[in-house]
Each structure stands twice: as C-alpha cells, then as structure tokens.
C-alpha cells in the first residue's frame, strides 16, 4: 500500500486543517505517513498544497504521482491533474469551485452543502471533506470521530456533533457514489505512532536537552521551532524571547549561555547573516551556542516559504576570523530530535557553536514516528564543580584539549568569570603580544580534534562497491533512500551516502567516494556545495551532482530521472 493525497486550494481555505486531520487519522489507523507542504508567501488566496502520502512501509519522502486530488481551486486540477495515477480520483465541490467536470474520475461532492445541512455551519466543510476522503479510501470512520471529539473538546458538544455529522455525511456520500474508487487500505501497525514535523522535533530535542533559553526573531521556516518552545515554556522552565532583530537574538542567547544556561537561537539565511558577527563572538569568548539554520531559497528574500540547501558553505565559513564550529544536517524529524540534543552536548563540552542545518522541507514535513527516546542522549553540561573554583580561576586556561574550565558567573559564591571579544590571556583580559595570541589561536583550534572524534560518519546505505554513489546531506535523506531502493529494484547497483554531520568533516570520505565507480552529490541548490566541500576536504572530485533550485524539494522521481538520464 502506497497512496498519495494532494489537497490544493487557496491560502485560508483550510486545506492544512483537512490534511492534518487526515494525516492524524491515517497515522492512528496504523499507516506510515509522510506529509510535505508547498505554500506561497501570502495569507489569503494564491495556490497552496498539502500533500499526504501513506503506506504500510516506512516512507520518508513525497512522491510525484498522486492517487487523490482534493481540489478547492481550479489550479489544483489544472496544475496537478497530470500527476494523477491512471485510476486516480479528483474530489471537488462544483458549487464552491464554480465548475463541473464530466469525467468518471472526478467526484463532485457537495461538501459545503453537506456541511451547512448536516453540520449546521459552512466552516464544517473541512470536516465533510476529510470524511469524504476517508469514504473514498474505505478507511474506518471511528478514528475521525475520536479526533473530532478531542480537538473540539473545548468548543462544546454542539460543535463536536456538527462536525461529526458533517464528516459522516461526506464519508457516506463518497462511500455511496465513488464507484471508480479501488483503494485497499491495509493498516499494519497496532502500535500507536505520532505525527511530527522537523520544527517540532528540533524543539522537542531542545527541551529534552534542557535548553532553558531561546531568543529569536521570527523568520520562515524557522519560526515554528520557537513557537513550539514558547508553548512549552511554562512546563519546561524555559524563557523564550522574541528579540527586536537577529543581532539581539544571538547576543541574548550568548549572554544567557555565558551566564550558565543552555541557549538556542533559530533563524533562516537572512537572519543568519545578521548573526555572523555574534557567531564570531561566541567563537572568541568560547561561549556554547546552538543555532538552528532553517534554509530557504535565496539570495535575499528569494522564495521565503519554499526550500533550498544553499547555505552549507556559508554556514561553514560565516563569521570573521578563524574559530572552530560544528555543523549538523539531520535528514528526518527523528534525526533532528537526536541531532540537536547532541548539538547541545558538543556546544557545552567544547564551548563552541553548533549549527543545526534545516530547511523548509525538513521544517514543515511531517513523519509518523514510532517512538523517541529522550534518554538516549544524556545531558552533559561539562561545567566545573564548585570545589574546582579557586581565586585565580582562569576562564580561558590553556589546556592540551584546548578546552578551558567553564564556571558560571558567581558560582560557589566566588567565581569571577571574565571573557573578552578582544584577544585575551587565560584570565580573559585584553592582550596584544604575539606569544599569547599564538597560544590562544592554537588553543581554540585544538578543540576541533576532540570534536572530530565524536563526529558521526555519514550513513552508507545500499549495495557494496556500487556503480553509483548518491551523496546527500540534510533533508534529501528520504528521497535519496527511496530513489536508491527503487533504482536497485530496477536492477541498478547503487548506494547512498547521507551526511547527518558535516563539520568537522568526517574521516574516510575519500575512500568511500573513490570506491564507487561513479558518484553524484544530490543537492537542493545550484552550485553543488557538498560536492565542492568534498573536493576541498579530500581533493576527490565527484563525477557529477544532481541539483534542484526551484524552491521545491527533491523527490525520488527527480533523482531517478537524473540518474537514468546520466546513463544515456
């Protein structure tokens, strides 16, 4: 079983609501669900998409072909009709759409009328639509009923009943009318799964890591991380502050971290630009910091609600001067949850900045997840104990590892913690002489050794000694993996190398790449940044790169097509 439902309509028509209810129903019903969203930078009108794919196998990426289109606008049919599978169906309401189609695969459901008639309110059209889809699928109805009850619990029984009736009416309407429908739902899991997107996973990971402070300036697609944290601030004892700009956001986080708590900031490319000076400050003052960099297509404002992976080399080189940093690039919500926890540990252990790279595709896509273990990654604050604090405590003591003892200002009723953005001595005071400067540069850079030892090798998946190695990072993970499976099932001999941690650059990559006859990086950008990074770090030239830079995520089909083209 592997179906895709595409719900299309204008911003404000509630397609997200419908889609999300369906995603919940299917997840609870035991299907693996993957959701991706495609929306314009406007609040009303335009043409947005909520695409939902579900299967009995674990799925991690969108598919190009669609089995059901729920059309709330003509664009959904005109722009996406060709994505339908041969016996795919279109569900629409001729009254709201203002057009009737005479095509057996087009099912006209009077959703609005049903909502008004059975539910008592036009707004319940969304529930009617959800019901209608479930009817087409022949999916049990009870789960929707349960979800309606829980989500409208505060709204009172009237609303609940209305929605249930609206849903049921849609359900029964399609059950009766959908003769061409031939979907077979085969739920496998009895085990409950949860639906989670990348932003939620990052926020949950931060909470699990004991993050106590988050400051940020709103910026799509990063805002969701902060919004989620703000909702949980009370339960988890953390402060979330909306800063006046990104410069304030990173400096507040640095101030909080200096004062002794785990601190986070999150932004997208434009905001990250404004944070680069702060990044350099964190490097010099050796203040732990975690930054979520949720990419979107640039340059400048670009396509603010869409996806791209064009800031890898920027993140790697951002900030003036030279200092260590760490870059992670989780590929799924699950990886994101664990990555950011590790990020906080590294940030504090090595007193450095960890940049967790995300993008709109990772941020807004939903995965159904079986379970997350908040205890898998232990919190390690790596602070010194009270009894280690002496009167001549040196915040920037030079050590073999390059890591200095980190105390909290005022700790043990005596710690005096001094740090400086100027080059400084072990005490943290300004210096200008050559030898101290040299010692401090070397001390800071030495930390990279220790960090490297903990960096994960990229995930190698697929055939051994592949004829083709597809190399990716971050949110392309799912599409890449599925492309590899599909291509191999078509007799190819391919494998995937997915970087979930990019800097310090993992060891042994040259060998892996050389061992493949051909190697392509697969990236959501124009210039093949990972390909260039591999060359910079290993001297090895990949044979090519598959790129996409129109603001849309790479699909398995995109990759398969490119690979097949490359063969001809």
């Amino acid at each position, binding site marked *: 079983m592997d179906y895709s439902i595409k719900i299309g309509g204008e911003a404000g028509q509630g397609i997200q609501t419908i889609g999300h209810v369906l995603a919940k129903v299917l997840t609870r019903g035991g299907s693996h669900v993957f959701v991706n969203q495609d929306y314009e930078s406007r609040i009303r009108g335009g043409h947005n998409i909520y695409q939902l794919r579900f299967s009995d196998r674990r799925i991690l990426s969108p598919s190009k072909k669609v089995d059901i289109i729920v059309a709330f606008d003509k664009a959904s049919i005109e722009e996406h009709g060709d994505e339908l599978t041969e016996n795919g169906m279109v569900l629409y309401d001729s009254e709201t759409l203002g057009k009737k189609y005479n095509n057996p695969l087009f099912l006209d459901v009077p959703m609005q009328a049903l909502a008004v008639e059975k539910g008592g309110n036009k707004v319940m059209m969304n529930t009617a639509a959800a019901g209608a889809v479930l009817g087409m699928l022949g999916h049990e109805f009870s789960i929707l009923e349960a979800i309606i009850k829980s989500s409208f619990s505060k709204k009172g029984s009237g609303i609940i009943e209305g929605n249930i009736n609206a849903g049921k009416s849609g359900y029964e309407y399609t059950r009766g009318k959908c003769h061409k429908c031939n979907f077979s739902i085969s739920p496998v899991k009895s085990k409950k799964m949860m639906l989670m997107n990348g932003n939620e996973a990052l926020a949950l990971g931060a909470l699990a890591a004991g993050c106590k402070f988050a400051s940020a300036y709103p910026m799509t697609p990063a805002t969701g991380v902060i919004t989620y944290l703000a909702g949980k601030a009370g339960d988890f004892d953390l402060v979330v502050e909306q800063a006046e700009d990104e410069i304030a956001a990173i400096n507040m986080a640095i101030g909080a971290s200096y004062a002794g708590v785990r601190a986070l900031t999150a932004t997208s490319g434009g905001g990250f630009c404004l944070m680069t000076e702060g990044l350099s400050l964190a490097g010099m003052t050796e203040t732990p910091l975690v930054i979520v960099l949720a990419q979107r297509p640039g340059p400048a404002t670009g396509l603010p609600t869409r996806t791209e992976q064009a800031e890898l080399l920027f993140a790697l080189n951002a900030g003036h001067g030279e200092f260590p940093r760490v870059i992670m690039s989780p590929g799924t919500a699950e990886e994101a949850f664990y990555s950011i926890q590790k990020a906080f540990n590294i940030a504090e252990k090595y007193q450095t900045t960890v940049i967790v790279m995300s993008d709109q595709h990772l941020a807004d896509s939903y995965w159904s997840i079986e379970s997350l273990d908040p205890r898998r990654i232990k919190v390690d604050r790596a602070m010194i104990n009270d009894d280690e604090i002496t009167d001549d405590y040196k915040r920037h003591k030079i050590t073999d590892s390059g890591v200095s003892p980190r105390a909290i200002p*005022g700790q043990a009723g005596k710690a005096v913690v001094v740090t400086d953005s100027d080059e400084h001595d072990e005490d943290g005071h300004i210096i200008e002489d050559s030898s101290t400067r040299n010692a401090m540069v070397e001390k800071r850079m030495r930390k990279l050794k220790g960090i490297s030892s903990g960096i994960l090798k990229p995930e190698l998946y697929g055939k051994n000694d592949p004829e083709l190695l597809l190399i990716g990072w971050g949110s392309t993970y799912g599409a890449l993996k599925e492309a590899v499976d599909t291509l191999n099932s078509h007799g190819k001999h391919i494998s995937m190398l997915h970087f979930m941690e990019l800097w310090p650059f993992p060891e042994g990559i040259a060998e892996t790449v050389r061992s493949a006859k051909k190697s392509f990086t697969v990236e959501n950008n124009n210039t093949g940044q990972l390909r260039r990074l591999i060359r910079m770090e290993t001297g090895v030239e990949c044979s090519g790169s598959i790129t996409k830079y129109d603001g849309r995520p790479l699909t398995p089909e995109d990759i398969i097509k490119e690979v097949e083209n490359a063969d001809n």
Partner: protein
Amino acid sequence: MPTIDNYTGQIPSWCPGCGNFSILNALKHAFVELGLSPHQVLIVSGIGQSGKLPHYMRCNTFNGLHGRTLPVATGAKLANHELAVVAVAGDGDCYGEGGNHLIHTIRRNPDITVLVHNNQIYGLTKGQASPTTETGMATKLQPGGVVLSPFNPVTLAVSQNAGFVARGFSGEIPHLTELIKEAVNHRGFSIVDILQPCVTFNKLNTYSWYKERVYKLDANHNPEDMMQALEKGFEWGEKIPVGIIYKNSRPAFEEQISVLKRGPLVRSGMSG
C-alpha cells in the same frame, strides 16, 4: 563587606586626564557602597574606550561586541536574575551601532543598568563624529562639520517611558556615584548618560565646557513628571541638568515572567 581593593584590576590604557578614570572610580565606589562583591556583579561592555573599563576592575565580565551590550546583558539577566548586571557602553556603541537595542530594552525593562560614557566622539577609532557630536563640529571624517543633529538619549528614553533616566558628569564623582547606586537599585531598566570629556579628540566639549554648563537638579524637579522630565531632557546649551531626570515604577521584565518566579534559570538549568 566588599572593599575598593576587591575591585582592583589592571592599569588603564586610557589617556591621562580621560574622563573614563572618574567613571571607573565612581562605579567601584558605587558597588562597594551597595555591598556588592565582585562575584555578584556582571559588567557587560562593548568596544570602545569605555568597553575596556571592566578590565580595570575585578568582577564578572563579558566584554562583547561594539554596540551589543544590551542584548548580552538582557540574556545574562534572564538566565540569572540574581546577578547585578551593569552594561557599560560608549555613545557610538549604545546610540549608534546599538541604537535599536536601546529602544527595545527600554520597552522590555529588564532590571539592568546601562552607563553610557558619552564623550560625544568616537574615541577608540580616533575621532569621528558620534551620534551626540554637536552639529557643525569638524572631524577628519566630517571635514565640513557634522550635518546631522545630535541624538538626544534623555528625551528618547523618556518618550518611551523608560524606567529610570539620569544624566551624570564624570567631573562630579560623588554625585555620579550616587546616581549609579540609584540606577542599580531601581528595579527595571536604568540608563545613565554620563558626560565624559575626551581630552584627545573632543576639543569642543572639554572638561571646562561641561563644568560651565552642568548643574544639579534639585527638589524642584519631579522626576515622576514625564512632561517636566522631557523639558529637562531638551535642556542642552547654556545649562545642562544632571541628576535623575525621570523614573517610574513599571514592573521589571523578569518580574513578569512566571517561569522566573521559581528562581533563576541557571539553577533549574544546572540539572540540564
């Protein structure tokens, strides 16, 4: 009881006669008289001559970037609101590069104090105009004289209903010391704009220039009257008032964040 010696730091690299010496002096005395020990105090400074101040005493110090003292201080205060947090900035630092943070820190009203070493010039970078440089004054970078009209930190702060607004003069150390104590004691955001002669680059606003003009506000001035405060704020020329110009009792930012009622984050933070 902390003593002045507890606050002894490195030897200043300021020019002989620089107004910064007096501010350093006043600040140390203020802390001692407030009974604060070095480990209970955090000074966040920027880049500029003023930014070097914390190195010349001994206390928790975060000498950060040019213009960014207030967000760092705010973040530190939110993480540990038991620290006495004082930001030390220059006029270019706080009113130029960092102007936006000033506006929004006033809105936020965290219980921190900012001391602005206002020498009406960019000292460390050798004498360019600052936001408070008098119109018409010529510098290397403004050879024809400054065209912009000077920034008025006092009226700006009062216009946004800042918690505590004062002006001091480095030539009046005991008076300045008292102002700093009041500012630190005020529960909310306090700004003290300190007139500080730069003997090297500002040949207009000299020690005597200020001395001739500065007068202390007395009981006739009601710092809780916003309109009166604004009028005093606009007073700049023949006479320049120093003292507490405005104050109100807006609750401090931290006091309004429920999570912090359970104690400083840094404690709940320790466990992780």
